[in-house]
């Protein structure tokens, strides 16, 4: 008997009177109201959700601020959803289609999302893409985010939008959604979820991804794995030498902003700053960076750290204080730390607490020997004329996103090498 706790079903929280197996069976049998929604319906609906989320009367405005969910407001706007649908669902085959062979997309069935606890907003975005692909969705929520998710879903369920003749109801949108919490050790529930899935979307760390991958699944189930990734910032000398004070400070603020976003817990958070050029040419810029980190730390006052992280930072601070060619710049307590190594270029594993390892390369080709096997985002600051050339080199080294500094934390398409909505649908064709 499954112990999974159901948080949300359809339009409201329901108690877990029915076992997970029965709920999944009912979900398979149910008619999904959004199968008849057009793309424009989703665009109109989510645009209204976005506006209402931050309206004066919004019941979730405080929640959004408290949980760093502001990004979702912009992400749900009309232009954003339109762009996302255009990028992901205008299949190349469709564009090339001749009259006698047409290509369409259909939902795959049930999309099960395993949301990680580190940056729950990403899991929420995953769910919305599951809805945009018109699948029925099951969210395995992290314990830490369950209540927040329920509040947001309750809010969405109450939204009502008139799109021309059509009335769009939040309760219809969420009509085929199950949100459950199951303990990681509850393998029985996890197995039921996996077996029901036509798409498994796994967000999480190594252990989580490993566990999900090992669960039994349908032969044709598609896996979208957003597993452990490493991100960093790369700056070239020419990006800083010609900057005005204001521009240099803006760039430094961008680094600080990326480093502090979501408590540095996301795979898109930088933990390393690689500087291409001589250490002396970056000295003035590092002074701006110290100021920017200090300001960002002040804005994040009151954040608490895991004792393991603070202990590890303390250990590394000592080693950098005594190591040759190394130095440390540290904020109050563990609010931030810059670990500077003038002699050895490296990309270090994250130690969190808003820590950045700064090292130098003389030649960008040195990056090949330091980039780990799972790079994701690189915040790149360089002169415009070299941007594409450097980005191409990074892509060849496995990097999946190259963004402007200060924009690393924004969830954009593609993500981790996927166009998720495209992966969540099946493509069908018709010869006439």
């Amino acid at each position: 008997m499954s112990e999974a706790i159901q948080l949300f079903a359809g339009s409201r929280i329901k108690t877990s009177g029915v076992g997970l197996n029965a709920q999944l069976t009912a979900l398979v049998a149910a008619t999904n109201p959004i199968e008849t929604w057009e793309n424009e319906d989703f665009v109109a609906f989510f645009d209204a959700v976005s506006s209402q989320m931050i309206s004066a009367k919004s019941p979730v405005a405080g929640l959004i601020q408290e949980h760093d969910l502001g990004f979702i407001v912009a992400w749900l706007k009309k232009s954003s959803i339109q762009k996302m649908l255009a990028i992901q669902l205008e299949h190349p085959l469709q564009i090339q289609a001749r009259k006698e062979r047409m290509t369409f997309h259909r939902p795959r069935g049930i999309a099960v999302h395993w949301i990680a606890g580190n940056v729950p907003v990403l899991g929420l975005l995953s769910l919305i893409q599951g809805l945009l692909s018109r699948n029925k969705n099951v969210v395995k929520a992290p314990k830490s985010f369950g209540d927040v998710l329920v509040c947001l879903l309750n809010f969405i369920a109450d939204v009502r939008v008139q799109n021309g003749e059509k009335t769009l109801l939040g309760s219809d949108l969420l009509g085929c959604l199950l949100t459950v919490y199951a303990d990681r050790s509850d393998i029985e529930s996890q197995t039921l979820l996996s077996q029901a899935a036509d798409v498994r979307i796994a967000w999480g760390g190594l252990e989580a991804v490993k566990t999900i991958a090992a669960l039994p699944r349908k032969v044709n189930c598609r896996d979208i794995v957003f597993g452990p990734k490493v991100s960093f910032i790369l700056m070239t000398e020419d990006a800083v030498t010609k900057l005005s004070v204001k521009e240099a400070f803006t760039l430094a603020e961008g680094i600080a902003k990326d480093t502090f976003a979501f408590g540095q817990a996301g795979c898109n958070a930088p933990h390393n700053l690689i500087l291409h050029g001589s250490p002396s040419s970056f000295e003035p810029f590092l002074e701006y960076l110290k100021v920017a980190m200090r300001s960002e730390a002040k804005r994040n006052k009151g954040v608490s750290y895991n004792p393991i992280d603070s202990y590890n930072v303390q250990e590394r601070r000592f080693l950098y204080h005594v190591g040759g060619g190394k130095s440390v710049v540290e904020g109050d307590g563990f609010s931030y730390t810059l670990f500077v190594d003038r002699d050895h270029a490296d990309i270090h594993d994250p130690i969190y607490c808003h820590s950045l390892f700064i090292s130098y390369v003389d030649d960008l080709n040195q990056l090949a020997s330091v980039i780990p096997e799972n790079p994701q985002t690189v915040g790149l600051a360089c002169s415009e004329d070299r941007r594409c050339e450097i980005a191409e080199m990074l892509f060849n080294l496995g990097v999946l996103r190259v963004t402007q500094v200060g924009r690393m934390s924004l969830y954009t398409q593609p993500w981790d090498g996927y166009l998720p909505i495209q992966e969540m649908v099946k493509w069908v064709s018709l010869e006439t």
Partner: protein
Amino acid sequence: MDTAKPLNPVDNLLNLAPFTQPSEDTDVLFIDAMKASIEYCAEMEPLFDRWLKARSINISQIKRIVDFPYFPSSIFKHVQFGETAAVARTLQSSGTTSQLKSIIRLDSTTSRRQTKVLTKILSALLGKSRRPFLILDVEPKTNTNDHTLSARIAGMSGYLMAAKSRIFVGSETDGAITLNRELLTAVCEKLYAENNPPVIIGYTYMVFHLLLESGINLRGMLPAGTSLLHFGGWKKLKDRRVPKREFNNRIYDVTGIPLSELFDVYGFTEQLGAVYPSVGNSPAKVPVYSRVIVRDPTTLRPALDGETGLLQFLCPIPNSYPGQSLLNDDLGSSSQSDNGYYNEFNIWGRPDNAIARGCGDTLPKGFYL
């Protein structure tokens, strides 16, 4: 004319009785001893000196105990200090939480201080007369290749120095350690007849394994005044850890040893000699040779009364390496006693390592699903 050499401030402090009530006077002695010990190390250890200078710390100007600088004890896994010292003995930590082990080089001064302090603390707990020790472990053979056993015995050698006689009551068959019941029963009968209360001693997990899991019942077989002293914590038996109170109750059930004779001793390789005994269900006591400060993991400031944080241990015993002020990765809490001092603390163990890292997790090289 008195030509006696003035005592080193560390020796001054170590001459006090171990559980002397801390006071402003003992604070002065403690601060002087810490300064002398740290300054000596800074002269001998260029890396330590570089660290102090990088942080603009002038030891001679320190007036408050909370202001002594500290670093994590794990540093000894990365940096080898004491390379220039006249090394009398080298210690290695058990390295249970990572592959790396702390390497601590002791000179004769450090070694002498460790023995002195440990002897004084053990005397305060077990009495001045030496007693027979029943050791819950296997007796090492002279030329053993069993490095785990050798390390275990080395780790308890300080305690064993206080023994009148040593009897190992564990035996090993095919790598499995079991209790030698016949031997233990015979020894207990003899000691009971002689009214000669022994000290039963061993690592916490060995006590658990050999006494609590073996099904033996020693009730009524041990003379009054028998003590049980264990140390090392639950690191090797993390999954089977039982709460202290339950552990002590179960010990009482199988041995009849009352709480007043049950000693759970906390200590660590990087600051050997200074040990912190907990009697029965009470918190660990801080001897006058040490101070323990609970630090908030976020701000590093001393935690509020009773709040949990990382534990900083200060003790001037180390002479050949800079281990006088160390931050441990154990969590603990401390409450102010009636005289305003924090001379007891509770240890809550290592912080939970299972942090939800999500996609920000690290990926080991060559990992495959």
